[in-house]
């Protein structure tokens, strides 16, 4: 029956594998779920879900699957009542328990019991699988039902259903298009390994050679370790029409800016289109004139632009077309873009807009100047391949 829960999880895009499922079964065989729904919730979550952004999907699946179980528990009442009616069972109870049951007449008991169960299916309450409001419940004293259904028992703490219902992890949820790791893997292609810096790595082969030449007297040869020599300039469009893509751009930035990935990494920002200056910060407080940027960049540096390249044609093609009202550009944006393109033979433009929107917009014009790929895993890999080879157009 539980196998359905696995499919429930998988239907919500949780990639629970057989490996993890078997671990869960093993854990349950060891009794690690503590025979309670709470315990099972924790256990299943800690084994099956490895990412806090997926906790919410797990909560959903858990609710969908086990809400049914709590509702089914209403069917149980008949069985339980017939058990209560049978005096043979009452005999096995202690004096105290018998007194307690007898103090309630059967109709009242049934009423209470059904009420409690209804409450439960509505509120998904209680610390135990069936009824769990704790020690004062008249239903909590009987111990085990003859057919093995446990009634009563310890409440206390918050139940799995309550936790799942709260869906505290909703905020963490991201149905990611492209996660940081995928970007990371893709960017690994951007390498230009070379030896540079202090020689602090022993070159065993060379040392043996040198020692032999030295008539067996030891001669150690050191060399610089291999490092990525690739330099990257990242130019990012922020604000306005880029806002819906801010997350994606942020992830690319996170992956690209990891320490030690490139020998030199410089991010700059612009809004809408590049004119006289780009900015060192996304708040546009520290401008860097484009000619200065170009002068400070070598021709082997790679340039990646991230932007939607979508604007009013005048913003790209006319002098004075800059979107900021206070800013008057004497040269049209496309001229500035051509300047930059000339300075960076190895360049790529990543566009988060779906490719089907490209024709007939400013995107097409810019794609003439910058080889352009869509900001998807595939596009990113192609762009990286292009940058690593470093020549030609798309």
């Amino acid at each position: 029956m539980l196998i359905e829960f696995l499919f429930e999880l998988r239907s919500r895009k949780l990639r629970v594998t057989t490996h993890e499922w078997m671990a869960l079964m093993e854990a349950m065989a060891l009794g690690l779920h503590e025979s309670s729904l709470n315990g099972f919730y924790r256990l299943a979550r800690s084994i099956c879900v490895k990412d806090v952004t997926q906790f919410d999907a797990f909560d959903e699946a858990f609710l969908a699957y086990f809400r049914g179980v709590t509702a089914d528990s209403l069917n149980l009442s008949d069985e339980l009542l017939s058990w209560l009616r049978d005096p043979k069972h009452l005999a096995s109870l202690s004096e105290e328990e018998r007194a307690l049951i007898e103090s309630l007449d059967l109709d009242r008991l049934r009423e209470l019991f059904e009420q409690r169960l209804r409450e439960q299916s509505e509120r998904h309450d209680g610390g135990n699988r069936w009824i769990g409001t704790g020690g004062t419940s008249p239903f909590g004293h009987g111990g085990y039902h003859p057919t093995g259904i446990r009634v009563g028992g310890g409440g206390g703490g918050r139940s799995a259903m309550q936790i799942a219902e709260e869906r505290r992890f909703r905020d963490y949820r991201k149905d990611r298009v492209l996660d940081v790791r995928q970007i990371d893997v893709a960017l690994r292609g951007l390498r230009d390994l070379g030896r540079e810096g202090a020689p602090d790595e022993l070159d065993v082969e060379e040392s043996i050679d040198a020692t032999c030449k030295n008539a067996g007297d030891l001669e150690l040869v050191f060399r610089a370790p291999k490092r990525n020599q690739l330099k990257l300039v990242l130019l990012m469009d922020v604000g306005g029409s880029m806002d819906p893509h801010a997350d994606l751009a942020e992830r690319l930035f996170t992956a690209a800016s990891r320490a030690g990935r490139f020998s030199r990494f410089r991010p700059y920002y612009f809004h809408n289109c590049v004119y006289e200056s780009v900015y060192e910060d996304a708040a546009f407080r520290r401008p860097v004139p484009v000619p200065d940027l170009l002068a400070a960049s070598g021709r082997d540096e790679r340039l990646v632009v991230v932007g939607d390249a979508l604007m009013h044609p005048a913003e790209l093609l006319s002098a004075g077309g800059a979107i900021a009202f206070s800013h008057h550009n004497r040269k049209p944006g496309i001229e500035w873009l051509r300047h930059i393109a000339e300075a960076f033979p190895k360049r790529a433009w990543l566009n988060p807009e779906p490719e089907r929107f490209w024709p007939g917009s400013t995107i097409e014009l810019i794609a003439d100047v910058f080889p352009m790929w869509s900001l998807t895993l595939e596009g990113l890999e192609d762009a990286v391949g292009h940058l690593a080879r470093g020549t030609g157009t798309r």
Partner: protein
Amino acid sequence: MTSHADSFDRFQGTERYIASDDLRHAVNVSLALERPLLVRGEPGTGKTLLAENIASVLGCELVKWHIKSTTKAQEGLYTYDTVARLHDSRFGDGDVRDIRQYIHYGPLGRALAAPERVVLLIDEIDKADIEFPNDLLLELDAMRFRVSETGDEVVAERRPFVVITSNNEKELPDAFLRRCIFHYIEFPDADLMRSIVRVHHPDIEERVLDQCLEVFFNLREVPRLRKRPSTSELIDWISALRRAGVPLERVGHGIPFLGSLLKNEQDFSYAKRRGLA
């Protein structure tokens, strides 16, 4: 089930470390299943401390492996000190023919070679190269490795209990995740935080604590902070307040020692502009 219960519920937190129910449960599940425990959470929520406390509760030695961006999986197992051997061959020190002298076990190697069970902490695994976790898969699964220079096979007599922490910065590979028990340390709520502070400052006055917590949680609510203050910063801040003997009345109107709560320059000046300092 009952017979197992004794061996199961083993980790309860300690006097020095307050663990939530969920965390205790996760630790015990990974103890029982003998799988690595992967802990993630905001920086400063006590991920590293957890391993120390598990070790002290289980009464075993703790082997720490702090991961840096340059750490290689091989270094965790062992390194072969070629330079020392060449050096010795030249100056005639030591027995050069015995390669074992020049094999040094790394933290993972030591944990596997230990005769007793140890707790191995692999701290901040996400800092290393992206393939690093995958390189550890075989050793963590089989709990054995081979020293290729000598042909020695090291097999763990008792599987070490492995605690892995990560700062939630980046995804780890699926194959690696599949083998772990996962726990996300949520930020403590006010009640849990109260008991955590009590552990570190047992004699703090209730009134002071109330006020400190209020300031602290309000500060966390301030929008657009780059790094919100966490548990360890709260504890440091309270120490600073007490040591300096700042009068109680001042807490609440402008925060003294704001620098021990906000470590980011932008955050600090931002909070100042909002009149918090």
